[in-house]
């Protein structure tokens, strides 16, 4: 049976249907989860999709962290469940301290909406297990606050523990160490600014996101079988 990929919908989220469709193209079954719910409806993986959760008021992700469902997401992550935050979802994961660092305004204050060339830096995560280090992927970015920032100590730990999963080939937003995506220590929680769901069909100009989503669906299958 196809694993169930839960896709969280906050007020202001706008990429949930794209993620459901792409997750299904990658072999999963998409299940929308409202942010006010307190349970995850036996899903095998959770995606926090892009958009503007709670209007991005205060800071992107700052209020979403307090949505009721986040407690369940936290427990799911703690138990080893695969959790991926895309774009605004990445911002939510850092605000919720499920991932270190913060996403601040892009260098040069530009809203960026363009294909980004990415290089796989680590395969030790639920999102990149199906790739090889050095693989190049072209996946769109679409953000104003995607400039990954952290202190030196955190950066050294991310590097030493092989937790930087994706880097930009040409760092469009000024991120520290050209970071496009990171994982937690166990590799089951991943955040990235690029949108793999927007690169999930030749019709969209790139299918490079599918390898990432297939990795996630694979991790979800393993979780379902466990």
């Amino acid at each position, binding site marked *: 049976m196809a694993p169930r990929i839960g896709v969280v919908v906050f007020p202001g989220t706008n990429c949930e249907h794209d993620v459901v469709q792409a997750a299904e193209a990658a072999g999963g079954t998409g299940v929308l989860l409202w942010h006010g719910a307190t349970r995850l409806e036996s899903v095998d993986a959770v995606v926090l999709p892009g958009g503007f959760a709670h209007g991005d008021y*205060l*800071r992107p992700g*700052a209020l979403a962290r307090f949505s009721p469902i986040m407690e369940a997401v936290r427990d799911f992550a703690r138990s080893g469940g695969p959790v991926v935050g895309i774009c605004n979802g990445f911002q939510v994961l850092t*605000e919720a301290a499920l991932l270190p660092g*913060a996403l*601040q305004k892009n*260098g040069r204050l530009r809203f960026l909406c363009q294909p980004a060339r990415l290089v796989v830096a680590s395969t030790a995560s639920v999102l990149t297990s199906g790739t090889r280090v050095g693989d190049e992927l072209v996946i769109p970015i679409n953000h104003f606050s995607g*400039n990954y*920032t952290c202190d030196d100590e955190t950066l050294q730990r991310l590097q030493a523990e092989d937790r930087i999963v994706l880097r930009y080939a040409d760092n469009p937003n*000024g991120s520290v160490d050209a970071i496009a995506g990171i994982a937690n220590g166990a590799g089951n929680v991943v955040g990235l600014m690029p949108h793999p769901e927007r690169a999930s069909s030749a019709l969209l100009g790139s299918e490079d996101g599918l390898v990432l989503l297939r990795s996630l669906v694979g991790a979800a299958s393993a979780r379902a079988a466990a």
Partner: protein
Amino acid sequence: MRFRARVEVQLRPGIADPEGATIERALPALGFAGVQHVRAGRSFSFEVDAPDEGAARTTATELADRLLANPVIEQSRLELEAI
């Protein structure tokens, strides 16, 4: 007692501030000379009911640290007055 709190949030020193830098770059064109180290930030105000100033300060500080500022990149400064 009721207190008025004003919380100022700014990026920590050393964290790049593209907004402040952009404002600073615009200054010469406007004829402002000798202005430097512009940092952008935001300010919040709210009122707190508490038995005394210490308790109000504790509540306002916690609110600032847990919600108004992201301690990873920002710092906050609190001003409190009885009203």
